[in-house]
């Protein structure tokens, strides 16, 4: 459809919106910009920029070489175009690849942190002091590429748990970083992973030593802050033999007119009998009602169950971004290992999401479970894309996949692209898919019981997403439920 046609349609439609459609026309509630002087690289990308970033991060020579190798490879790669998403070509020379909030001296404690930054966190409901005092959650907060505060470090250090920014890990724990970095997502893996490897600015590093059960949820709040800054996070989590960790990642971003590129890489490594649970609530700015602005979220997330009996579980609640391109995956290499993927993806207005998972069964008796819930509203497009691969030697592999789509209104789309490749006869692979609409009947039934349409939609959505929400840690689940309601909220007449 041509843009002109669509706008005409829109004028006509405004008055005819049914309650469900009015319902979903909510505004982004976290749109504000913190004014902090940024220490930026000039726009554009070349080897000098990469040297600049590496120097800024005070990185050793091997790290710079690693980045340059990724960059040179990236130059020869083509941007992928197979996803069910559409966007204007990205001008990679028009992006600022490094921006750090200016701080004259490195903070020794939370009290030394720029009050403006602190207020940003407070607006988001993340007061570090509160977190520190009350919740038992250690927060490694990332604003525009530099970690500004890390709490609970001492308690974790006693157990030998390392939880720090990636830059710090490169300086303080180079042997661990060298051993595991890019072993799950090679620098040459895909276009965006190569770009990330070349220019990543910061991220989190977690190492859980043998036999340690991490006593608290580890959490990082990301926030994209300076204008025109692509944010390239790099996260690496290693769970050594017999250890356990639950990691939370939550995001909100300020309102912005120009599209912002976000290309993160997350790598998880689980050794023998280890378990990693990785939960994400993603609420980046999705663009306005007409599809202007918003974040491009092109992320590579992958875990490897390297050891026997290991387990990796991804849970994601995706409500934000203009475009989401993301497939948290698990390579089931160790015998008896388990991979899980639980996802709720909400798209509204002009948002586009192409998300799903890959479960690669290599070891014997490996199991995987996929539960994907897509919610589409407005004129958005929501695609599930999943691969279940069972290799020749992976005897007795089991997979169960469930992909459900819920439509609000009749101008949005839901698509399911399941790929199944089985090379071993003993595999059992099941796939179920449903598509449903929020019906006027459901809304009326709630209305008749005194429940207004907005609340009714929230009830129905949360019911639909319940199986995934149940996977989230308690406090996070409450936040995520609110987020679902907010994402689809609007003034109901």
């Amino acid at each position, binding site marked *: 459809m041509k843009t002109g046609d669509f706008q005409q349609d829109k004028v006509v439609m405004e008055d005819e919106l049914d309650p469900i459609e009015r319902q979903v026309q909510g505004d982004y509630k976290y749109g504000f910009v913190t004014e902090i002087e940024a220490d930026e690289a000039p726009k554009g990308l070349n080897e000098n920029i990469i040297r600049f970033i590496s120097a800024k991060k005070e990185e050793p020579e091997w790290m710079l070489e690693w980045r340059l190798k990724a960059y040179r490879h990236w130059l020869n790669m083509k941007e992928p175009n197979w996803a069910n998403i559409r966007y204007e070509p990205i001008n990679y020379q028009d992006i600022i690849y490094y921006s750090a909030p200016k701080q004259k001296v490195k903070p020794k404690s939370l009290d030394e942190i720029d009050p403006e930054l602190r207020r940003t966190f407070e607006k988001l409901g993340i007061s570090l002091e509160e977190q520190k005092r009350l919740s038992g959650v250690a927060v490694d907060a990332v604003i525009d590429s530099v970690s500004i505060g890390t709490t609970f470090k001492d308690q974790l250090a006693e157990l030998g748990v390392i939880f720090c920014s990636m830059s710090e890990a490169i300086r303080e724990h180079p042997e661990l970083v060298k051993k595991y970095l890019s072993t799950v997502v090679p620098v040459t893996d895909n276009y965006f992973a190569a770009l990330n490897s070349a220019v990543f600015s910061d991220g989190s590093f977690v190492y859980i030593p043998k036999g340690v059960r991490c006593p608290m949820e580890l959490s990082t709040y990301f926030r994209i802050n300076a204008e025109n800054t692509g944010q390239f996070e790099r996260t690496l989590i290693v769970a050594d033999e017999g250890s356990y960790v639950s990691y939370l990642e939550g995001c909100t971003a300020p309102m912005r007119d120009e599209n912002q590129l976000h290309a993160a890489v997350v790598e998880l490594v689980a050794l023998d009998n280890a378990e990693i649970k990785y939960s994400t609530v993603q609420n980046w700015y999705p663009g306005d009602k007409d599809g202007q602005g918003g974040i491009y979220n092109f992320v590579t997330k992958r875990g490897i169950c390297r050891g026997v009996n290991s387990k990796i579980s991804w849970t994601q609640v995706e409500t934000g971004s203009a475009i989401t391109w993301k497939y948290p995956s698990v390579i089931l290499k160790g015998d008896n290992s388990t991979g899980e993927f639980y996802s709720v993806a909400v798209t509204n207005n002009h948002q586009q999401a192409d998300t799903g998972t890959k479960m690669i069964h290599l070891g014997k008796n490996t199991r995987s479970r996929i539960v994907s819930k897509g919610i589409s509203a407005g004129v958005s497009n929501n695609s599930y894309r999943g691969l279940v691969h069972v290799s020749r030697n992976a005897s007795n592999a089991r997979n169960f996949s469930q992909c459900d789509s819920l439509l609000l209104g009749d101008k949005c789309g839901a698509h399911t692209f399941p790929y199944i490749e089985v090379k071993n006869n003993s595999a059992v692979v099941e796939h179920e898919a449903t598509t449903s609409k929020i*019906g*006027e*009947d*459901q809304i*009326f*039934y*709630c*209305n*008749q*019981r*005194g*429940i*207004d349409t907005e*609340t009714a939609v929230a*009830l*129905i959505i*949360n*019911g*639909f*997403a*319940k*199986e995934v929400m149940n996977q989230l840690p308690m406090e996070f689940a409450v936040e995520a439920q609110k987020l679902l309601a907010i994402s689809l909220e609007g003034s109901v007449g």
Partner: protein
Amino acid sequence: MLSIRNLHAGIEEKKILKGLNLEINAGEVHAIMGPNGSGKSTLASVLAGREHYEVSEGSVEFLGKNLLELSPEARAGEGLFLAFQYPIEIAGLTTTNFIKTAVNEIRKYRGEQPLDAVQFLKMMKEKMALMNIDQSLLSRSLNEGFSGGEKKRNEIFQMAMLQPKLAILDETDSGLDIDAIRIVANGVNKLRNKDNAVLLVTHYQRLLDYIVPDFVHVLYNGQIVKSGPKELALELEERGYDFIKNEVNAAQEA
């Protein structure tokens, strides 16, 4: 309590109710009977405020307010309850959570404080005992996988929890066996008092053996053509709706 005057209503271009009059006072039970297509369910839908039903003429006053101006949820807040002929399923939403939301939204409408978890649980336990309903039903997703009887019992349980002034029961007996009818009817009878009223919409007389009405009205061709005491229902059962049709047609010709 409810005063319907000269109500004309329909769906899209189709006229279904053509000048309906009805007065219901507190403490009364009225039954509306009639052949298929006479407008029984349309009346229930119009009173509850279902979308797509258009009122072209007439008025409906409920407890002194113009009912037709109110949104469906405001009508519920004012004390109007509809037990659905086909209760709707919502996956993943527990029946308890649904009812709790409804109770508190209605309290909010009336300017009352919401019930906290403890108060709500206490109220629910009381009504469960009264309605003879099982906890396990309430922990399940709303109406999902419920049998026909369970769905209707759940409707009456919601009625008990919401304590409406006027309950409209739309074909509550349809699809139920005689035991299920008895259970549902017992529930309704327990909720009757001098301050509330019930409007039964039914095709068959059998429900009226268990919920005994004060008045029976026959709806035919969009109008109430005959009203009488409960014995009228028995007469209809015996003679069928044809005698009413004949009477009406004869009167029109005369």
